[in-house]
C-alpha cells in the first residue's frame, strides 16, 4: 500500500477539563474518500481543526504523505496541500466569487494581474471538475449549494490534494447533496484524497471508501465501508444499540383541532411565502410537512403560532380563531393549549445565557406552580427542572448550569421538555432534531410518538425526509409556498422527492 496521505499519531487535545481528542491514531489512504463519523461533540471537528492548523494539538504527530508536518497555522496546512471546506462557510458575503477564491492566494500586490490569472485557472478547474459557478457573482446572491462550491474551488485553487469537508450537507437539499457527492467521487478519480466529516450515516454509506468512528474524543473503530452496516456504525457511535426508525402503532385520530384555511403570507418585500395553504390536524395524529428548506415552512409555522402577519386566511385552534395580525399573545395561545417547539432553538426557543431551570419554564413562568405572590418560586422552579432533566435524560444533570453549555441535542430536549410537559392539545414542532445526535433523535422521536398516542395533535415540520416518513401519519409536501401533495406514511422517498422538487402532482403520479 502506498504511503498514507495523512497519518495522525497519538493526537490529544484538551480544552480546560474537557478532553476533546484522546490519543488518536488515524491513517487515511491517498485517493480515497474517508469518512469520519460521530455524534456532535465527539471531537471530529476538533481533530480536523488540528490538521488544518486552527488549533495546536497538546501532543501527537502529523504526517502528510509520509513526511512529518508541523502545522502551526492554516497557511502551513495550505502549503502541505490540505484544503478545508468549513461547516460555516468562510466566505466574504459581499465579495465576488473570484475575489473570495483569490483571497490569501493573490500572489501579487496588485489585483489586476492576479485576478486575470485566477479567472483562467478557475475556468480550468470548473471545466475539469464540473464545478460551474459565475466568477463575477456576489456570494450573498448565490444559493448555499453554490457557495459551498466556491469553498471547494478555493481549496482547489490553492492546489489542495487533500480536501477536508466538515458536515458539508447540513445546509444542502437532497439533490444538492447528491450533486456534491458526484463531485467528490470525481475528485477522487482525479487522485484527490477526501476526508468527509458527518454525523449522517447514510452519507457515509453512500460515498465513502473507509470510515472511522469517533465517540467521546476517542477513535473507536475504522472500517471499510463495504464491510460494515448502518446498524454497526450507529452502535459504535452511540456505544449502545439504537433504533434508527422508531416503532409505532397505528394512529387513532379523533376530532379536528387545528385547522388552517386559505392562508396566505407575504414577506417584507411582498413576495408570497405561503400561498393559499389549507390543512387540518386531528387529535391523535402526526401531520408532517416535508419540503426543501425555504419553501414557506418557516413562515407557515410562524403564522400559525401567531408571530407573523397573514395577508388572508384563518387559523382555528380548538374551535376559536388565532389572531393573525402577527401580534398574537403567546401566553394566550399557550393557555389555549398550543405548544410550540420553534425551528431555531437558539434565537427563539431558548435564552442561552440563562440557567437551565429558567429556560425550562420560560413562557410558562406565570403559572401558579412557579410563583409565590409577585415573586418567582425559585425552589419550585428548580425542583420542576430537575424532574424534567430526569424524565428527558438531559445531560449534564445540573439545572443551574448555563444553557449555552449544553450540547445541541440536550438544548433541544430542554425545549421539548418545557413544551411537552405542559400537556398541550396541539404541539407544533419545527426541525425537532436539527443538529441533534443519533441517540437523542431516537429519544425525541419516541416522545413525539408518545404525545400522539396520548391523543395530542402534532404538526411536524422537518427538512429531514427520513424523519417525516418515520413519524408522520399523513405527509404534506410544501413547494414554493403551496401544499403540492398529500401522501400516506408509506410514500416512497422518490415520490416525495419529486413533489419536493416541484414536479407537478400529475407528473409525479405517472
Amino acid at each position, binding site marked *: 500500500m502506498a504511503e498514507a496521505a495523512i497519518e495522525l499519531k497519538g493526537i490529544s487535545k484538551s480544552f480546560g477539563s474537557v478532553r476533546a481528542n484522546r490519543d488518536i491514531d488515524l491513517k487515511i489512504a491517498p485517493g480515497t474518500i474517508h469518512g469520519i463519523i460521530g455524534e456532535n461533540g465527539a471531537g471530529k471537528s476538533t481533530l480536523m*481543526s488540528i490538521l488544518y492548523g486552527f488549533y495546536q494539538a497538546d501532543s501527537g504527530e502529523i504526517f502528510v504523505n509520509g513526511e512529518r508536518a508541523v502545522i502551526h497555522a492554516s497557511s502551513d496546512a495550505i502549503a502541505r496541500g490540505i484544503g478545508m471546506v468549513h461547516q460555516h462557510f468562510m466566505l466574504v458575503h459581499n465579495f465576488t466569487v473570484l475575489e473570495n477564491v483569490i483571497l490569501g492566494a493573490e500572489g501579487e500586490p496588485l*489585483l489586476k494581474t492576479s485576478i486575470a490569472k485566477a479567472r483562467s485557472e478557475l475556468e480550468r478547474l470548473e471545466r475539469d471538475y464540473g464545478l460551474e459557478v459565475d466568477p463575477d457573482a456576489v456570494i450573498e446572491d448565490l444559493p448555499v449549494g453554490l457557495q459551498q462550491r466556491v469553498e471547494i474551488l478555493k481549496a482547489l485553487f490553492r492546489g489542495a490534494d487533500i480536501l477536508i469537508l466538515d458536515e458539508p450537507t447540513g445546509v444542502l437539499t437532497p439533490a444538492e447533496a447528491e450533486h456534491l457527492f458526484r463531485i467528490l467521487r470525481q475528485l477522487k478519480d482525479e487522485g484527490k484524497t477526501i476526508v468527509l466529516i458527518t454525523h449522517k450515516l447514510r452519507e457515509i454509506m453512500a460515498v465513502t471508501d473507509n470510515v472511522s468512528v469517533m465517540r467521546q474524543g476517542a477513535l473507536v473503530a475504522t472500517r471499510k465501508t463495504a464491510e460494515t452496516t448502518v446498524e454497526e456504525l450507529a452502535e459504535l457511535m452511540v456505544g449502545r444499540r439504537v433504533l434508527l426508525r422508531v416503532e409505532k402503532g397505528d394512529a387513532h385520530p379523533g376530532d379536528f383541532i387545528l385547522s388552517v384555511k386559505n392562508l396566505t403570507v407575504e414577506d417584507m418585500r411582498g413576495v408570497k411565502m405561503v400561498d393559499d395553504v389549507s390543512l387540518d390536524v386531528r387529535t391523535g395524529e402526526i401531520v408532517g410537512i416535508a419540503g426543501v428548506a425555504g419553501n414557506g415552512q418557516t413562515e407557515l409555522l410562524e403564522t400559525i403560532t401567531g408571530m407573523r402577519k397573514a395577508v388572508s386566511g384563518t387559523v382555528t385552534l380548538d374551535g376559536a380563531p388565532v389572531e393573525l395580525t402577527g401580534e398574537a399573545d403567546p401566553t394566550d395561545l399557550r393557555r389555549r393549549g398550543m405548544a410550540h417547539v420553534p425551528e431555531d432553538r437558539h434565537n427563539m426557543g431558548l435564552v442561552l445565557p440563562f440557567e437551565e431551570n429558567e429556560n425550562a419554564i420560560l413562557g410558562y413562568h406565570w403559572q401558579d406552580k412557579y410563583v409565590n405572590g409577585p415573586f418567582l418560586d425559585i425552589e419550585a422552579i428548580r425542583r420542576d427542572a430537575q424532574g424534567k432533566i430526569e424524565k428527558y435524560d438531559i445531560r449534564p444533570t445540573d439545572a443551574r448550569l448555563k444553557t449555552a453549555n449544553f450540547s445541541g441535542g440536550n438544548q433541544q430536549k430542554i425545549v421539548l421538555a418545557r413544551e411537552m410537559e405542559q400537556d398541550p392539545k396541539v404541539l407544533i414542532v419545527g426541525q425537532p432534531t436539527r443538529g441533534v445526535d443519533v441517540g437523542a433523535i431516537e429519544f425525541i422521536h419516541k416522545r413525539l410518538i408518545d404525545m400522539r398516542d396520548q391523543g395530542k395533535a402534532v404538526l411536524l415540520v422537518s427538512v429531514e425526509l427520513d424523519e417525516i416518513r418515520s413519524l408522520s401519519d399523513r405527509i404534506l409536501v410544501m413547494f414554493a409556498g403551496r401544499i403540492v401533495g398529500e401522501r400516506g406514511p408509506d410514500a416512497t422517498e422518490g415520490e416525495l422527492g419529486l413533489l419536493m422538487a416541484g414536479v407537478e402532482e400529475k407528473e409525479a403520479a405517472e
Partner: protein
Amino acid sequence: MDLFSTLVLLLDSTVRLSVPLLFAALAGLYSERSGVFDIGLEGKMLAGAFAAGAAAAVSGSAWVGLMAAVLVSSFMALVHGFASITHRGNQIVSGVAINFIAAGSTIILGQAWFSQGGRTPLVGSDGRFGAIHLPFADALRGVPVVGPLYSQLLSGHSLLVYLAFLLVPFTWWVLFRTRFGLRLRAVGENPAAVDTAGISVQWLRYRAVICTGVLTGLAGTYLALAQNAGFVKDMTAGRGFIALAALIFAKWRPVPVMFACLLFGFLDALSIRIQGTPLPLIGRVPVQFMQALPYILTVVLLAGFIGRAIPPRAGGVPYVKER
C-alpha cells in the same frame, strides 16, 4: 462684492474647512473597513495637532512638526490597536479613553512645556505649511470666471490640502485594486475567512490601524500648522466626530467620503459667512443651529433619504478563533 466672488470665497473656505475632516474620515475608513471601530479620531487628531505645534515651535520646521504629529498619533492608534486587537477589548471604550487622554494631556503638557495656558508658541512661516501658488495663478487672475476659480479656488492652498484630495483616489485604489485592500475589506467583513485563508487577522488589522494613525496625524498637522500657526487647546472642536459622521454618511466609501466632507465643510463655511447677518424670511440663524447641522443632516439623511448605512459586518467585534 458681487455674488460670484462671494461664492468663490465661500467655496474656497469650504475646501479649507473640509480638509481636516477629509484626513480624519479617510483615517477612520482604513480602521473601520478592517473591522476596528474608531471613535478616537478626535483624540488622535488633537494629539497630532499638539505634537505638530510643539515640535514646530521648538525646531522651527513644519516638516519636523509633521513627523512628530504622525508619530504621536500613530502611537495612540497602536494603543487602540493593542487594546482592541491584541486584548480584544471594547473598541468604543478604548476610543473614548483615547479622546480623554488626548484632551487632558495636551493641555497639561502644553502648560508644563510652554506656560502659555495650554497653547504652543506661534510659529513663523518656516514652521507652517504655507500656500502654494500654482503656475500662472497671478496671470490668470483677471480672466473672467475661470480666473478667480483657478487662482483662488484651486491655487493658493497648502501642500496638505492637495495631499488630502489626492488621498481620495489613492485610498480608492488601495482598497479596490491592491491585495492589501482586498484583505482589508475581507477582514472587516469576515475575519474567519481571512484566518482560514492563511493570513494573520491581527497583523492585517494593525496595519490598518497604523494607516489611521498616520492620517489623523496629518489632520492634526493641518489644523496646527496650516490653518493656524500653533496649537490651541481643544482645537479639533469635535471635527473627529463630524468626520465619523461623514464616514457613516458615505457608507465607508472613499469618494462619497470626500463629498460628505465637502458638504460638512460647506455648512461650516456658510455658518461663518452668515453669522450675524439676518437672512431674508428666516431672520437671524443661531450659530449653534448651523454647528449642529452636520449631525442633524446625517441623522435625517441616514434615516430616510440615502438608505441604511451598513457598517463592515465584523466591525466592533474582536476576532476570537473558534468554531
